[in-house]
């Protein structure tokens, strides 16, 4: 039972970090970012980059954030900035970007699997059961990140500015919001959180150029269920999606777990297309 609860916490918190970037880019900027999973993938490749360049381990995070930020900024300035307000076009364009990113990574690192050494090895005793120490550390890091984000979100006007910008770009500009800079910053920030999720997950998952799709799909499910535009919605969505898979996977089978996730997502799309919480509509 303890393991189930710990697994649940792990699944929910990691999915929350993975989906956060999509919640910002899709939920706030209205860019249906099909390349979201590829930013998770690039983040997961950061340790591969540092080890292939012979860099020390502590550079993994800077390398991850700089790489993801540069790629995201380049794409935003060249392609994404023309697609605000054109959701369907953004879906097609980012799908193409996703393919491009996969191919670039494949060209650089090959099609094969990569492995990343876990920085904190071993298991610890949690209420009488052995649990990987690294997972516990990661959960704490994610909790701290979300705490900071929630605090900042409450104090800062940025969320309101983004809402204004997406709702009426001309008016937003007229009241002095630098929409170009704001949208680029929001896109890059969203992609960086995805990259960081990839980096944190890297020692616990398979790493290959095509790994991103799993994370994209689960993130979309979470947003469909939770609703766009708020941290609360994101929290509810990831809890329902990750929780359903974990609990049904544990008590029945993984097949039924996945089936339940799909059913849940379809029911929400059909009966409650705005999700549980939707603050931006």
């Amino acid at each position, binding site marked *: 039972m303890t*393991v*189930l609860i710990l*697994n649940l916490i*792990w*699944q929910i918190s990691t999915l929350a970090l993975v989906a956060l970037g999509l919640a910002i880019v899709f939920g706030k900027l209205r860019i249906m970012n099909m390349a979201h999973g590829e930013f998770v993938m690039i983040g997961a490749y950061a340790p591969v980059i540092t080890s292939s360049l012979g860099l020390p381990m502590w550079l993994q995070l800077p390398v991850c954030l700089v790489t993801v930020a540069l790629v995201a900024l380049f794409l935003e300035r060249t392609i994404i900035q023309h697609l605000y307000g054109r959701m369907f076009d953004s879906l097609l364009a980012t799908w193409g970007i996703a393919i491009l990113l996969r*191919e670039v990574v*494949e060209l650089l690192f*090959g*099609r*094969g*699997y*990569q*492995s*990343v*050494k*876990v920085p904190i*090895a*071993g*298991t610890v005793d949690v209420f009488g059961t*052995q*649990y*990987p120490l*690294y*997972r516990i550390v990661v959960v704490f890091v994610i909790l701290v990140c979300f705490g900071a984000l929630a605090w900042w979100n409450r104090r800062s006007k940025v969320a309101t500015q983004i809402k204004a910008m997406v709702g009426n770009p001309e008016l937003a500009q007229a009241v002095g919001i630098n929409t170009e800079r704001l949208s680029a910053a929001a896109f890059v920030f969203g992609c960086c959180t995805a990259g960081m999720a990839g980096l944190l997950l890297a*020692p*616990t*998952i*398979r*790493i*290959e150029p095509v*790994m991103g799709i*799993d994370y994209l799909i689960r993130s979309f499910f979470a947003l469909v269920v939770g609703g766009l535009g708020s941290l609360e919605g994101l929290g509810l969505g990831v809890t329902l999606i990750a929780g359903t*898979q*974990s609990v049904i*996977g*544990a008590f029945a*089978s*993984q*097949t039924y*777990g*996945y089936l339940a996730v799909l059913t849940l997502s379809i029911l929400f799309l059909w009966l409650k297309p705005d999700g549980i919480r939707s603050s931006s509509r």
Partner: protein
Amino acid sequence: MVNKTLRLLASTSLVAMMVAGTAQADIKIGVLVPDSGPAGLFGPSTRNAAELAAQKINADGGINGEQIELVFADVGVPPAEAAQAALRLWKGEGVQAFVGMHDSAVREALLGRFNGQVPYVYTPVYEGGACADGLYVTGETPSQQLAPVIPYLMDVENVSKWYLIGHDYNWPRDTNALAKGYIDEAGGEVVGEEYLPFSVAEFDSSLQRIKTSGADAVLITLVGGGSVGFNVSFSGFGMDTQAIRLGTLIEENTLAGIGANNTKRLFSTSGYFSSIKGEAAATFATDYAEAFGADAPALNTLGQSSYEGLMLLDALAEKAGSLDVVAMDAAAEGLTWTTPRGENTLTGRHMAQTIYLADGSSGAFEVVTSFASVASSESCSN
């Protein structure tokens, strides 16, 4: 798409170079490789191994004195498309024989088209059960991989409680059906059996089940990325102290993805590892590195199998005196030939071969023991 085009360009230029280097080829052989799709990872090594085989065959005087030329097609696509691609090679380009490294669905589609009219060697590890005129199989079947290995591991590693986990399709299910028999015969028991959909990327609940089952051995028939993810989590939870792991398709790429820190007490059974000893295997590995460079795609049982397939085709066509299916079918039973894998015999259209058990604990496969001339329980009659 860009990728496919590039690959196609690269491969055609390679073939062009090879043709330019040899005399005018007399026989065209179609080599069916997965350039795309789930097995796309194995495309490059499969192509390379086939190139090496063609060089060797031509250097030794070709097939029945005629030089051969390889023509490749991508079969990492849906079965109907793969069959179309093979048909183009056969009817369009005049290919006289096929060697294929692809999944079973594609094989069945091809057999429907070939209809015993053209010799066809099927080379990857597979679940067994394929019989047809003109079809010869070199890949390991579950009986070969498990019949000698399960009792050996139970004895040497002192384990008896097996948990069987695989992806939900016929290869894992057929493998486990046989495995249960071998485990039972050796006095062990199966304490759990589980099949996962391909869409599952986290294995927490499965690991929990394995833990509570008290298993001291896990038979893994997950493939590709699923196998990597499962094994990484398995070690992350420290389960490698509870149970040994045995995989029937954990090859060099998968092992690299799992990573040296997560491979403690992880075994793999296969007809080929890049680290197997023996003169033929060593020569093969050296030739491979020389021809394709140090950064060449890692050798593995699937990629290397295209070499085995071409060598079987060569040996069988030499014995039959032609590439005629009726003559080859008649000559098939009892054919013996030597390859990097060792001494092989064709029995019931399947390849009796040496089976190697390797330990991946160090992060690279070290062969623990080998079993010579293991015949498949699969048997096709003439």
